[in-house]
């Protein structure tokens, strides 16, 4: 990622002219968009993978549910700004390392998804579980082939929240200098130049919307049986 082209030193003549701003900077802005995309999505993927076993444990061992869900809920209350600032010194990464963004957002995803996964798995009907066990499914097979597929709608709903929240929080990471769409906000703010702010805003809203839609479509494709239930 190249550093931003040299901007105006003073307020531009036409602070709202988006077209003017984008002139020659489309590639740069798309680069930020791409950066924003993977900084939002990667933590969700990693967070989901980590939250799955924890959520399963919370469901499988009843006594762990309350502590696990409570602890993960508390994680969510830590301000993102604080995490962004503290994480680099805790894990000793370079100040501009994207890991500094990925780790906090992964933590948020885990915080959100542990409960979602535990509740999704708990929503599977007890008679269905019994039938599966009685047919000779091992615990792992049952989880993979029965419980998780049935929990997909609930897990999908949680992922939508996580992804949209992440798109918003990535922008905050501009304060620690990792480039993404949020960079346009701080840049525009410093120069009273509104066009980049508008561009950043539109793109991050569009990104959140697109990712949300993607999950909705994926859940729909993976759960054809739900349409049947809805049509009842």
């Amino acid at each position: 990622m190249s550093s931003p082209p040299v901007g105006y030193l003073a307020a531009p003549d036409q602070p709202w002219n988006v077209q003017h701003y984008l002139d020659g900077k489309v590639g740069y802005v798309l680069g930020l968009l791409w950066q924003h995309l993977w900084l939002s999505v990667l933590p969700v993927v990693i967070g989901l993978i980590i939250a799955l076993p924890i959520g399963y444990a919370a469901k499988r061992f009843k006594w762990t549910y309350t502590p696990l869900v409570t602890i993960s809920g508390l994680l969510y209350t830590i301000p993102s700004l604080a995490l962004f600032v503290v994480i680099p010194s805790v894990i000793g990464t370079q100040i501009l390392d994207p890991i500094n963004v990925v780790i906090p957002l992964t933590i948020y995803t885990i915080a959100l998804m542990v409960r979602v996964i535990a509740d999704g798995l708990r929503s599977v009907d007890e008679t269905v579980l019994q039938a599966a066990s009685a047919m000779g499914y091992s615990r792992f097979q049952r989880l993979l082939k029965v419980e998780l597929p049935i929990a997909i709608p609930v897990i999908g709903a949680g992922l939508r929240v996580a992804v949209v929240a992440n798109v918003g929080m990535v922008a905050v990471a501009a304060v620690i200098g990792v480039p993404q769409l949020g960079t346009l906000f701080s840049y525009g703010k410093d120069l009273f130049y509104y066009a980049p702010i508008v561009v950043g805003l539109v793109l991050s809203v569009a990104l959140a919307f697109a990712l949300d839609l993607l999950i909705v479509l994926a859940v729909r494709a993976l759960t054809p049986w739900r349409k049947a239930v809805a049509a009842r």
Partner: protein
Amino acid sequence: MIKFESVTKRYPDGTVAVNGLDLVAPSGQITVLVGPSGCGKTTSLRMINRMIEPTSGRIWLDETDTGTVSTSKLRRGIGYVIQHAGLFPHRTIVDNVATVPLMLGVDKKTARAQAMDLLVRVGLDPAFAKRYPAQLSGGQQQRVGVARALAADPPVMLMDEPFSAVDPVVRAQLHEEFLRLQQDLGKTIVLVTHDIDEAVKLGDQIAVLRVGGTLAQLATPADLLARPADDFVAGFVGRDRGYRSLGFADAGDLPTRKEVTVRLGSDFAAAAALAEDGWVLAIGDAGEPLGWLDASHPGTGPIGPQHLHRGGTVATEGGSLRAALDAALSAPSGRGVLVREDNTLLGTVTASEVVARIEERAAAERIEAAR
């Protein structure tokens, strides 16, 4: 054969659900476990496929101690049917049924084809195959549950209140289909119910459990009704057991009389002239009895179905004394209608004739018992 050998189950909280149970469920027969709520029926059933592990004692499946084989292997040879079916909501009906064969490595096409056959066998329209469970009625789901349990052709079937979540009409239908199916398949079945009527209807033998998980009586349905072991069993078996036990008593050759009949469509006035005690029996073209015609309210023109009294039941030759008595009691003419296997009229019999037969039989039994 399934054999319980002094099996006890004590739950971690101290509840003794089953206590020293000795029981044999013979191969190819339906053994019904009945008893009041909480007497350990479900616990006993689930110990067979080890969804619950016995605290002590052993359960044998033929020559195998079930405690010595892996649970997966054990369970794949045992079909399991529960109340509300427990179908997988995310799989189509046909894939629900094909679950175990697919798990066992049967290829998809074969497994699905077999599943379709099974759906027909349990009385389901194959058009349902592509639907999801939520799109089926409770009774239909229950049929799918039975088909799914049968899919791998397991020698043993465990059924926990399989018919209790459906209305009485559907339940009676499912009972008939279940018995017909069992006649073909000859599975070793253990079925749990808290409904003594269902137990009597379906069981080859009935095990009555009492709360605390002990066996109160093990007997055939007829024996259970005729000779309850103690007050608890008598109370549980309930009223009318004298009458209900007639359901197991072969009517034998009843002294039937020939009945003058009229055909549907013949002239009303001519028919009325043939009536005895004010009633004459109408039959259809194939000789099947259709109903009684009331000659005291004569009409004109041809006899139509709307003129017939439909309240009478019909007993089949070689059926039970209960069916014959009911036919006589329900006929407005007082003459119970008996038919042959092919549904053609055999003749009629009165209640007093059936009762005479019942008394003869009881007397013979007393003499037999005295010897």
